[in-house]
């Protein structure tokens, strides 16, 4: 089933970590195999923030295996060496969990494709997000468990999207959890509720164009699809509108960039979405109770119609 939630504050920052945690926790009955956050925090915008993992947290049906911490240490060492070879200077590093790391990197580049390919050529290493504002945090368990584990409740920023996952077509592990980074674009993330039926056809086409897939989760296709469109000059909104015909199946998804948040709903309107929109705040989720966790007072909400695409700026 899965649940998605997102919010964007316009003209100000807020405690988006705590707010998104409340929204996703309200949706935990839609799935708590894994939960993921894409948080756009307040930063000085000078350095890249790279969230990456050097191992897996393995649940039911996963093809991955749990490994010894020494393996993680070895992979981290290779990542550090690779960064140094590329001239990327690590300003700050945090190791929240043995397999999960956060680096602030001083690195001058506009094209992250080469950078990402070199890092991810290290076996067992996956970049969860790369950007100057975006941080993707995802792990097994419900929203509160993941929030507590990674201390997300104090993150201040402008916007965020998140996902509570009930695993269906792929196993329970971090690589299949949402949000997905819009590789190789800085600060692009995607969450999705639904099923895509032309996943393999699209995947083959996109892989032939040099795009990369890290999981077998159909939702990853949306991130890659949008990223590929943007790579060829489309705006976020244009890419999302093309996806209504390019992607087959039922879906409601959110895409976020450094300064915007968008939603798209398939032409069958088969997946739910409730939307609240005001001058200061846009909040949306699979169910109204998600919005109520940040806006308990009586508010006007609505369901976007079939085939609708909307994008908001901060």
């Amino acid at each position, binding site marked *: 089933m899965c649940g998605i939630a997102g919010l964007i504050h316009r003209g100000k920052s807020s405690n988006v970590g705590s707010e998104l945690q409340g929204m996703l926790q309200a949706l935990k009955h839609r799935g708590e195999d894994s939960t993921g956050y894409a948080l756009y925090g307040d930063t000085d915008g000078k350095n890249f923030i790279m969230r990456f993992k050097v191992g897996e947290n393995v649940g039911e049906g996963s093809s991955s295996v749990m490994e010894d911490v020494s393996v993680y240490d070895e992979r981290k060492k290779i990542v550090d060496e690779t960064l140094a070879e590329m001239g990327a200077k690590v300003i700050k590093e945090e190791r929240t969990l043995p397999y999960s790391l956060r680096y602030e990197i001083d690195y001058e580049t506009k094209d992250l494709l080469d950078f990402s390919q070199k890092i991810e050529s290290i076996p067992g290493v996956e970049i969860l997000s790369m950007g100057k504002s975006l941080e993707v945090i995802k792990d097994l368990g419900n929203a509160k468990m993941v929030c507590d584990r990674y201390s997300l409740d104090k993150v201040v920023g402008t916007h965020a999207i998140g996902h509570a996952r009930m695993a269906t077509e792929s196993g329970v592990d971090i690589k299949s959890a949402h949000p997905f980074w819009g590789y190789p674009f800085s600060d692009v993330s995607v969450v999705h509720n639904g099923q895509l039926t032309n996943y393999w056809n699209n995947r083959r086409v996109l892989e032939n164009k040099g795009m990369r897939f890290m999981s077998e989760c159909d939702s990853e296709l949306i991130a890659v699809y949008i990223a590929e469109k943007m790579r060829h000059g489309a705006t976020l909104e244009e890419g999302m509108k093309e996806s209504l015909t390019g992607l087959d199946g039922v879906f409601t998804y959110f895409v976020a960039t450094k300064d915007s948040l968008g939603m798209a709903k398939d*032409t*069958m*309107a*088969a997946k*739910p979405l*409730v939307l609240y929109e005001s001058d200061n705040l846009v909040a949306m989720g699979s*169910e*109204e*109770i998600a*919005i*109520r966790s940040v806006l*308990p007072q*009586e508010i*006007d*909400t*609505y*369901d976007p*119609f*079939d*085939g609708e695409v909307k994008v908001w700026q901060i």
Partner: protein
Amino acid sequence: MANLKTVSKKSKAQSMGMHTEVLTGRTQQKFFNPDEAENFYYFGTYDVDFNKRTELDVKDMTAPEANKEIDNLMSQGYGTIVIKNPQGKHSLGVGILNKLNLIFEGSLGYFGMGSCDGPIVRINGRVGWSCAENLMAGKVVIEKNAGSCFGAAIRGGDLICKGSVGARTGIDMKGGTIIIGGDAGAFTGFMMQRGRIIILGDVGINLGDSMYDGTIFVGGEIGSYGSDAVDSELTSSDQDWLKRKLKVAEIGENFDVSKMKKIVAGKKLWNYDNLEPTEKKGAI
């Protein structure tokens, strides 16, 4: 078998046995002895007094707790109950088989007022997916917008949304009336079997797709017609009925019903004949 090459299209279908099926089944049976009428009652219903009014704050209650408390209040004879702080909770007000004035001061989540038979309900907010699913009788009025599958499979009663509704409104409905003050999404009236839908605003794609029977009235633009949904003539009695219905619903008081479009089932789908697929190709 009839000679398909020589008969007209209409008589072709009829001569092959379409539209002639004799209705059978539970609805044609006699269930009750008139002499036992006095003993007939719904299990779990109460005598309530509409002038006996109370309020119930459900802010800190789960949906089962709230529904149980509504039942408890009805058992005490309360005929008017005001629900405070529903806050988008799912499945509130389900399974009420009583006459009752029920007022929600706020919004409901999914499956609100499902499987009800008889209550008069006013919701001063919005409702989520599948509001009033399987409604048998009564009246449910929503002051704001509604989610998808609004009035799914209702069999009777009036279901009124003063705002806009999502996709698949009236899906599989078998009776009753759904009235929408605003716009409606895709697949409105999908596979409806009886009943009427009135939409004052625009409606999305695939209107009335695969409808078996029933009528849809649309005041605005239609995205597209679904399979076997066709236009029909809007008669003067249709207009009279529409005016009366809109007046009772307190909606669209000055709406010009003479310009509404009337959509019905073409009745050419496979489910209207008893032919083999190869025979059907010749008939349609």
